């Protein structure tokens, strides 16, 4: 049986919770063989492959609730602070390079300081660095060096979530399903 090119890397990356980005040659291979991968992940693990225009990832019935919540809090705070700073946060997140010092300055002077201090991943500079590394492992950010990073298109998952949240599209049923899954 012949497998698509990069098959092993594609499966390993997705099982590691990574987003495969359009800039990665693996993405084209995954996209071209999407039917195969849909059935492969469904039959092997009961996972769903989510293929978007510029990234792909897999989802299971079980979700990493803590990480998802931390990422949402992180993006929520960052967008809020960037906007407060008079910046077009969507453009900044899409195109700009971020420095950890700048991030520290936003978080340490935030009006949401209580929320930040009570979050283990975000409460101080050291923990935030680890958190950023974690986002790097998932391909949500791309590190330029130890102190600089930029966001990959994978951030859109969370921006879409915020837009849907605002629209009230998440119905009470959705909420219940999500909550049950997390138990």
């Amino acid at each position, binding site marked *: 049986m012949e497998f698509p090119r990069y098959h092993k890397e594609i499966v390993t990356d*997705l*099982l*590691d*919770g990574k987003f495969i980005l359009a800039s990665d040659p693996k993405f084209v291979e995954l996209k071209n063989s999407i039917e195969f991968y849909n059935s492969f992940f469904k039959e092997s693990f009961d*996972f769903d492959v989510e293929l978007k225009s510029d990234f792909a*990832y*897999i*989802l*299971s019935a*079980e*979700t*990493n*609730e803590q*990480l*998802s*919540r931390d*990422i*949402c*809090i992180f*993006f*929520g*705070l960052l*967008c*809020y602070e960037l*906007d407060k700073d*008079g*910046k*077009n*946060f*969507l453009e900044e997140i899409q195109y700009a390079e971020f420095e950890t010092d700048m991030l520290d300055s936003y978080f340490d002077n935030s009006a*949401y300081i209580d*929320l930040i201090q009570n979050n283990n991943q975000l409460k101080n500079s050291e923990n935030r660095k*680890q958190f950023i590394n974690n986002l790097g492992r998932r391909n949500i950010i791309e590190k330029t060096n130890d102190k600089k990073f930029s966001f990959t298109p994978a951030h859109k*998952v*969370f*921006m*879409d*979530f*915020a*837009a*849907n*949240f*605002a*629209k009230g599209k*998440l119905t009470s049923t*959705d*909420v219940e399903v*999500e*909550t049950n899954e997390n138990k």
Partner: protein
Amino acid sequence: MKAEPKTIINFLSNHFETVKDLFETQTKEGFVRKEFLNEILKENDSDIFNQLIEYKFLKKLGDDYEIRGVYFKFFEFILNEFKPLLPETIEKYEQSIGSLFKKIREGIAKDRNILVQRINELYNEVREFSDSVEKNTLRLVTETRELKSNVDKIDYKEKVRKASFWIDYYITPLNSILDVTHPQSITNRLFEISQYVNVRRLNFDDENTRIQFEKLYNFLVQTNDDLMRQSKILTNELLPLIERIRTESLILTGWIEFLKQPYKAPIPKVFKVFREVPYSNDMYWNAKEYFEQFEGNDEVILEDVQLEDFEKWIFNKELYHNKLIQSLPVNSFFEWAGKTLKGEYKSIETDKFFSLTTLLFEEGINLELDSKSDRQLIKTSQMNLRVPKIKITKHGIS
């Protein structure tokens, strides 16, 4: 008007700041309040009220004033600050252009003077229409970019309100006026006119009228290009730009709502990694905690210690113990220790003296403390010691 045109232009140039202030006031309020006029004249220290009236710059409006239209338009033009026209105001040109075109067609075989005049009128109407569209687009571009760059740091609610305002009242209606795919748009009407004029400029029997048709045709072709360009700016630049502000604000609203109850709100799914790793997920924290306990927080001071003497002299307990035993009974232990050291080294080193003191605690040494007698003074190399008189007996026999 008695004044020379050059005098008026010079006057406007010399008092530009004052007239510009008046223009800005009228742009904002629609007229110039009497009190504001006096204030501006006083502030700029210019006594030009009479000239403003004489050159017909200002017109009296009850107690207040108004800049005459011709000057106002001139300033709009030179300052590139156009008050946006509501699309319904621009739409009126559709009617006037349509009605003139209808009359041209109906009177094509009638009086030529009237025909030429109507052609010129149509030309003027099209130019005014095209100018209005251009001014509006320019203004909308400025407004939208300002909103986007947000130099005034207005909050997102106000930003989205403004963006919606420009989209709903100006950009979308203006776009539909210019939309070439819309059968009722003015652009389509102009296209229809240009087709008619194109035929007439070639086959009309009177040369003068042909020339007028030719002029109108060329102008319509140019206008059509201009309008297409304006429409492109609206479609390709303004709508996405302003739509983006709306999206951005929607996302921000979502985050603000989420942050109100971040631990209760629903969350997007994130894949849970099932991969087994040979170390715990908390490895980092555990290791960090482990190492942190060894981090000494007490201040440590390192001093240079003269190690030479220590290295040279090692206390030989057995030797001194034997010496003591041989000297028994000893009336005063400290005196004995002092004498012994002095005998050997010619001075009593404090460290050596204390080392000998440890002999007191050796087994087989019987002490008797004469608490009544005075303390003895022993002078060591570094200090004076006042020591009690301790008697050492020989196997319990004095």
